[in-house]
């Protein structure tokens, strides 16, 4: 049994993941965030449970904050329209959360998968 990861170590991983996720978003396809998280979880030998949670948190933060940031920089009626289309009752706040949710699950599932490859 490995000893549990320290909080500061986990925080550092989240920070690294967020930076990697954002850079991946700018230059690579949307799912690159997941693949890079898997790679990171693999080389850092993250425990599977931690990997999932850290990937989830990081993916959520990257996508939710970026969505919020874009809407701040380019305010338009589009998020409101999309929040009606999905349908989320027109709530842009819920749309940020939904964006974060998809980024988070993508990050979490892939980080978990990467970690699992190491723990035979």
């Amino acid at each position, binding site marked *: 049994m490995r000893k549990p990861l320290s909080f500061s170590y986990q925080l550092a991983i989240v920070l690294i993941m967020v930076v990697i996720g954002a850079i991946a978003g700018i230059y690579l396809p949307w799912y690159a965030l997941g693949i890079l998280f898997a790679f990171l979880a693999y080389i850092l030998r993250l425990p599977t449970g931690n990997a999932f949670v850290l990937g989830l948190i990081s993916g959520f933060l990257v996508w939710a904050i970026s969505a919020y940031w874009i809407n701040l920089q380019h305010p338009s009626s589009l998020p409101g329209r999309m929040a009606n289309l999905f349908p989320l009752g027109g709530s842009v706040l819920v749309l940020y959360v939904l964006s974060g949710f998809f980024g988070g699950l*993508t990050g979490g599932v892939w980080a978990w*998968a990467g970690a699992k490859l190491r723990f035979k």
Partner: protein
Amino acid sequence: MKYIKSILPLTLAIIWTYALHNSWGTLPPLGKLISPFHGFWVNAEAPESGELTEENLQILGLEQVVTVVYDEMAVPHVFAQNDHDLYLAQGYLTAKDRLWQMEFQTHFAGGRISEIVGEKGMVSDQFQRRMGAVYGAEKSFEGMKEDPKAAVTLQAYSDGVNAYIESLTERNYPLEYKLLNYAPEKWTPIKSALFLKNMSFVLASGTDDLKMTNILRKYGKDIAENLFPNYPFVESPIIPVGTPRDFKPVPIPESPADFIGLGSAMKTPEKDPNIGSNNWAVSGNKTVSGLPMLANDPHLTLSLPSIWYQIQLVAPGVNVYGSTMPGTPNVIVGFNKNVAWGVTNVGSDVLDWYQVKFKDASKAEYWHDGHWKKTTIRIEKFKIKGKESFVDTIFFTHHGPVVYLSHEKPFKSNIPVGHALRWVAHEKSQESTTFYQLNRASNYADYAQALTFYSAPAQNFLFASNQGDIALWVNGKFPLKSYTHGKYLLDGTDPKADWQGFIPQPHNPHAKNPARGFLSSANQSSVDPSYPYYMGWQYAPSERGRRINERLEAMSKITMDSLRGLQNDHFNIRARTLLPLLLAKLKLPAGGIYGQATDELKRWNLQNAADSKGATIFENWVLLLQDAIWADEFAADENVPMNRPSMDRTLKMIQDEPEAIWWDNVKTKNKKENMAEIISGSFAASIDSLLKKHGPLGSEWAWYKHKQTGVRHLIPGMDALSRLNIPIGGGGTMVNAATTKTGPSWRMIVELSKEGRPRAHGVYPGGQSGNPGSAHYDDLIDTWAKGELRPLLYLEKPEDVSGRLRKKIVLSTKK
């Protein structure tokens, strides 16, 4: 086992990603779509600051520098140094704002929607191709290329669109590509021809021949001709009665023998678009400025992105402003220094059906003029998203395509099976030359010359110049026909039933500077019965045309504002005649909801204003009254689709034929209804239905709430990208023809000036940008609904100073 356990999560991750990377049915690819780096978030555009910004762009293919300035409506004013660059820039800039729409509409026109939406697009796609959309576009493209100048415009426009497409990466594709999960393809000049051809589908594909033959078969010729007369009882034709004739008519072909035909019986849903348009021009002696003024408002399906896109195009020899149709070069409706022009649709009969007699099941030969003649075939290949491709064979007689074989189910109820289609939209044509020349016209002679190249869809081309001329040509290619030829389905074996050439273009109905001082058109009868040629038996109802003419007759000292008032006129001229007749016959118990509604109607000022309750009651009553009179004998929902007599004919019956057999409801076996019973019964039914829909008589009965005018996104059901429930009055039979789904799609008023500085105003219900993430997506709708117009900025040179300019883009060649 361990190995599987460690691979399983990876498999899950891949499945998750695959699921979110692709679209499933109508569900978009969620991962790609919602990613803030790739999806819809990227399409958000911040509103302009109000300051003038500058930008340099390099695009492939330009010969010299092009300067573009955008005003506060986001209208580009393009200054190029030659034609080629001008149209290349038009293609580039239009695509920049409207790429998805341009491609989607031409995909639709060319029968290729199933490539995007899968199998459910197939029936519409097959219909488009069987009707000869692609065949017609190919032929008209051949004709367009014959004019070298037009050929340059089409090729340069196409190069411009492609230069824009090539500058895109997946993440900055227009939103709709992300929603529907596909990518733009290369533009080609023939797509512009397809777009123009599609205007014939929109405006000149209406056909009642089958329904009329079904009536002929059921009731015989006397009743058919009595209920469906060949000229309205009340009319104010487009060409003023008494206009002198400046041509000697050619001989009229002999009539074919009477033909009953098989008709056909296929149950399909009814579609009834309410498409029409208004335009008018007034002479200088009726205006304050002393020079002519011209107004136009084409009514089309209201959509987002809008069918129109404003632009100013300036190059040596041309400085034109107006509305363009994304997908084709040049301005379609607009003005330049010296002239202004506008169009409305001509409802003449340019489409006929011929019952085909094939020799055998191979359909290799058909009977005509006493001989077996060979059919030709055309193969159409359909790519279907998520399915195997489908190959379709279309058989052609010398008339045209056999749209549906006898055993097939037509896409629309008015299309007969087992008939070949003869349609003017299949002719070789040169519409692009007409618009190229109109954009550069400086006087009446230039305008008249430009029109000689035009075929279809036929339009009432209205004209005004700063030399003081106003003119109108009912223009297009019109088949030379005997009286009522083609009102019913025709005999495909009879050579006399064939079209015998066309009315010579100089003989098309026209008028110039009439004594009454104005010209107008609103899709009503082009001419009075003294015109020597037969053009068709059925045009749009006369109400809008009559109202416009009576107002223009009465108006003097005309200004931009008084014409704007006329464009927004919603006086119900039909109610003026009909309502007193109906109220006189109405017998209902007083008091209660019926009494309240009757009082409301009696108080009504006959204006279909947005908040009018009387308008709601009247319109709904007339609808149910027509049902009550005609639905029993001319049921639209029976397997035999039939026309209903027009309102013009119905009004005649209410006025003069109280004993007509049609008043009786044949569905009630032991009772014979009379006129008063039908009128009162339909009133009660109408009030009951309004009560059920809107509650007790009150503000919920307001006309606009009942009518529900909306500007809807081109993808059906995309309410989130649409503007619904718009507070606007009017209706189909009023000058302000805003109905539930159609309406004035571009309103323009031009005041010409001797100095070549025309003052123009305009608006359309949409916005310049096709991007729902732009402030310019729908920013003009409120102005439009209020009945206001925006001043149109007409610049001389790119350095012109105006507080309305927001953005400057310098386009230069990409090395």
